[in-house]
């Protein structure tokens, strides 16, 4: 079945540094990838989504490129801010059933002054 792997459970960075959060996936169907962000005691919100191979998608300073050849959809930002501290989830849906979303284990990003 479908699955999503996020290798970093915890990432701690100093404000202003770049960040990359890893996301790889497995599916036998054509994929649709998402990044959701969840701030403390809040509901998750969509950050990015893509189904287009090798096309960069951007939102709120974050960006990601879906690479079907390596089954990856890494999240990046060139300069993190204190407000970026949150839980980040990579999620996968596929063309066999777009109503089902598979989430990775999540990466907790903490940005320090």
């Amino acid at each position, binding site marked *: 079945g479908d699955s999503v792997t996020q290798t970093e459970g915890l990432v701690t960075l100093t404000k202003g540094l770049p960040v990359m959060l890893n996301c790889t996936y497995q599916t036998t169907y054509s994929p*649709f990838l998402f990044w*959701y962000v969840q701030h403390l005691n809040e*509901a*998750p*919100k*969509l950050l990015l*989504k893509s*189904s287009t191979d090798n096309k960069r998608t951007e939102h709120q300073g974050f960006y990601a490129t879906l690479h079907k050849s390596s089954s990856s959809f890494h999240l990046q930002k060139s300069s993190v801010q204190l407000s970026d501290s949150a*839980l980040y*989830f990579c*999620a996968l*849906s596929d063309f066999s059933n*777009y*109503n*089902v*979303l*598979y*989430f*990775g*284990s*999540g990466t*907790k990003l903490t940005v320090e002054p």
Partner: protein
Amino acid sequence: AQTIHQWPVAEIKAVGSPLSLGCTIKGKSSPNLYWYWQATGGTLQQLFYSITVGQVESVVQLNLSASRPKDDQFILSTEKLLLSHSGFYLCAWSLPSNYAEQFFGPGTRLTVL
């Protein structure tokens, strides 16, 4: 504007007791609806989804059931709670189109003792 309301906000229940959690979406007709479970600080696990009144599909049951008695209402329930049911239950909605963004509600915190 669309609003999503979940009730109750929090619940403390005994093992073996019944449970009913609710979700209402206002301002959007015929949305797709979803139930998720999240362990504290953990990943999101999709439980059920519904694309129309009276029709619910199970993704992972976890000894829970769901119903959609009205277009804007989604109910999650069980007759017998287990300790493993503790966690955060999130309702979400999306437009009835492929890979539409899912908007999450504020959630219900459930503690089973």
